[in-house]
């Protein structure tokens, strides 16, 4: 699995550092950019790390109605996301060669959603229930878009292993700038919804009846909350990473670039998309709940374009 040479050790090191640091920093960047848009100086970029450390030291309060699901869900979710970080090709420097099958990835994400939803229902609060109900509704609308974007990439490459699809070596995909770009757009729009970001959900409000993710984690506190937050941070990086990889693959220069450039640009890509999110959130408003299917329709339309391109290119 891991050949012990300096290059792969370096890769592994870079990967571990980025999977630890990038999630909170990405969120820090989003918050900082939003603060600057509002003419505030804003908290330092490392503030999410400090928040998590602070949460770790607090004492935990849970509802008396919860079952074993509630606390184990957060441990399971973060482990699923850590596993996923090794499976999803969100960077170009991947240390282990586990085949990241796209259906497996989608269903692992669904597994983490399943636990999140159940944990939200566990305390029996109205907020948790609302959040859970909305989360599954959004997931239902977004899921076909995500899977079709990835499937059309995989279908063009002739494999469902995403590690091979996103390896800059698949000649069948090299000339498909349009496909990569549209897939990137589709995945980005879908991840805005999946990550409960702005047009779908407002991550900064609390106790508002229209929210999704924040409503679900209302009962979590202290370490439990810290785990949930970290899970969410990792999810942000992974989903943004995969759409930024799509955009990077659309650039012909990247196919010639060296490993180092690719690695640096893939980190930069995640931060760039994070900044885009911050800009979108500063300039737009949250959509009404009933309008959301129309927004998601854009992502679905992108995925259908991807499918059409994939079908036309493989014409026999």
């Amino acid at each position: 699995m891991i050949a012990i040479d300096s290059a792969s050790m370096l890769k592994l090191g870079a990967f571990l550092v980025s999977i630890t640091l990038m999630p909170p920093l990405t969120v820090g960047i989003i918050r900082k950019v939003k603060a600057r848009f509002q003419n505030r100086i804003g908290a330092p970029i490392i503030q999410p790390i400090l928040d998590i450390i602070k949460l770790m030291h607090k004492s935990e309060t849970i509802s008396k109605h919860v079952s074993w699901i509630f606390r184990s869900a957060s441990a399971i979710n973060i482990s699923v996301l850590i596993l996923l970080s090794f499976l999803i090709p969100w960077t170009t420097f991947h240390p282990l060669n586990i085949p990241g099958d796209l259906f497996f990835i989608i269903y692992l994400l669904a597994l983490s959603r399943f636990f999140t939803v159940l944990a939200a229902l566990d305390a029996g609060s109205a907020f948790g229930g609302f959040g859970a109900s909305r989360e599954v509704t959004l997931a239902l609308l977004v899921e076909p878009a995500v899977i079709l974007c990835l499937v059309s990439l995989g279908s063009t490459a002739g494999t469902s292993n995403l590690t091979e699809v996103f390896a800059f070596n698949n000649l069948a995909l090299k000339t498909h700038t349009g496909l990569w770009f549209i897939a990137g757009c589709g995945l980005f729009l879908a991840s805005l919804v999946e990550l409960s970001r702005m047009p779908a959900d407002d991550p900064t409000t609390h106790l508002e009846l229209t929210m999704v993710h924040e409503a679900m984690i209302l009962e979590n506190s202290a370490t439990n909350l810290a785990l949930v937050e970290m899970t969410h941070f990792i999810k942000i990086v992974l989903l943004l990473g995969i759409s930024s990889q799509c955009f990077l693959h659309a650039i012909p220069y990247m196919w010639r670039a060296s490993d180092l450039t690719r690695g640096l640009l893939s980190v930069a890509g995640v931060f760039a998309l994070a900044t885009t999110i911050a800009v979108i959130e500063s300039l737009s408003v949250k959509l009404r709940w009933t309008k959301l299917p129309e927004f998601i329709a854009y992502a679905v339309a992108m995925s259908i374009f991807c499918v059409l391109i994939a079908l036309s290119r493989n014409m026999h």
Partner: protein
Amino acid sequence: MNSIHFTVTTLYTAACLVWAFGFVITLISDVTKIQIKDKFFSFIMMAGGITAIAGAVKGFCYKELFGYQIFPNFGLAPLSCQSDTLTGPFILLMGVITTTSALACPSYTSGLATKNERNLFYKLIFLLLLGTFLSFVSANAIAFLVCFEVMSLSTAGLIASDHIRHRAQRAAFSYITASRVATALLTAAFLWMQHISGSFNFDAWHFESSRTLPAALMIFIGVAIKAGLWPTHVYLPQSYAEAPGPATALISGLVSKVSIYLMLRLIVLGDCHSPYVIYAALALGLISSVWGVLFALVERDIKRLLAYSSVENMGLIMVGIALAMLSKHYGLPGIAAIAVTGVIFHTVNHGLFKSLLMLGAASIEKATHTRELSQLGGLARRMPWTMLGFFVGGMAICAMPPTNGFASKWLIYQGYFQLSFAQVPLVDRAIAMAVIGSLAFVGALSLACYAKAIGIAFLGRARSTAAKAADEGASGKLTGLTLAQLILAVICIILGTSASVCMHGLSPVLAYLTGSYADPSSLFPIPQGQLCLVGLILASSIYILVLGPKTQSINTYITWDCGYGPLSARAEETGSSFSHPIGRIFAQILQLDMVTTIDGKDRRHFPEQIRVETKMSPYLETRAYRRTLDLISWLSLTMTRLQTGSIHVHLLYVFLTMLFLVLLGITL
């Protein structure tokens, strides 16, 4: 290898004899005063089940066929049995489900008042088992029809076992109607095939020529009715909901699989390449999967929810069968291998986790005396074992890794994925993409559906006093019912984590159905077991190291109530409100309507009474079937006018008929 041949035959015969013995015992108990204990019957069921498992495993290991005749002269054809590699997985599934339901049966029968009720239940169960088993191993059409009928009628009997209730009567009637139509179609198709091939033997039938198309279509429609595919699924929720708990596990786990078996045995093995059958199977399968899960999601009764979800899964299996036929048609052995493995694995898996969930529902019903989700809640602490079993079952049916459901669904996905870039016409590749999109949609819907079922029934606070007082029995220890669920749950997880090993066992079936000698274990490359182990270690170490130190100092407090003071359980999310956002999106299909009435002097600011009512009328039942039924009863009423009761008019009818027949004779 005569001795092995002998062994499989002996074991299969022994299983049948054991069940027949049980049936005879119930008869003896009926006529004499002997009171037989529930445990004895359950033991007999289990013994038969375990014998069947042994036979199937033996058959797997040695790849032996057996065939013999019970009655050499049974009307048109000998009543002969035959077992080959295809029956293996089905018999194995049957053995496992029978054994586990046998554990659960006493929990139901101990609640029955009289000896006769108890005997009737077991009598029907034994008949059902015999009928199902012999349907799987019957070698020709006549034997199959006889056994199939025994199975259908005993199922109808089980559904009607609580016949005092009006709902059970209706359910039994609709079940009988559906199975009558299915049998009629199958009989017609079988006669047609006999006419063409000159034999009633299944082995002699091939569906390659176009002359067999009507027969193939009729078989497909019969199978679709029996499996509960859209639009003939309407009887399924009624009948599954009314049958007694352990019997439902058998019916949903086994009886629906007989039709899948027939489809594989005749249509797939008979090399049917007709595009009509292929695309009909694909279309009905897809519609059933979407329709089934959508209705499951908005359902309020937990057993009906599971029944609708059966419609979904039968649809998925049919989609897989369509892929198998399509890829065989285009000569793509690789995809055919994936599809066939996926279909058989999913059939077995669905049998397992659906029985598991049905037993869970039975357990809930027994403990709370209700199946309404709106009356449940907070059962996780009252019924921990049921919760665990239902949770695993829910994960498996939503195809969550690392359960078995994921492995089989992955194969169906993978089959269509490979079809999307195979050397086939563009239309089929586009269809493949569309199927993948719809499967993703169905997957997300079923996640919502089971998150609702588990979340509303087991989590949160109790919504009724019955749920508050729910008791699994045996004060926290395992009862037969909970033990059965745990066994099935463990099997689901083992089949999932060692999916490739299990698929390796399917290689003779695969070779038999597709003629390819690919090793099915190589078809599923995801190291699910290893990843699951890593994930488990990771999760438990995080739990112990990060969450663990806080466990001692945890404060428990009320659920956040915005400072209003303790909220009652009515403030919780209910099942209907959970599924309402999705219901709104599909309001046209579900016929969902919400009426809000606000009363009071100043309605806007000081409402005195707010009443919200959601109404949902299933489209097919109200629009299509209700109108057909109305038409039939109107026709019947109109026709009664012909029967005036006057002898003269009837003599006129006789005369007119004679005249008509004479004319017919002259013209022909």
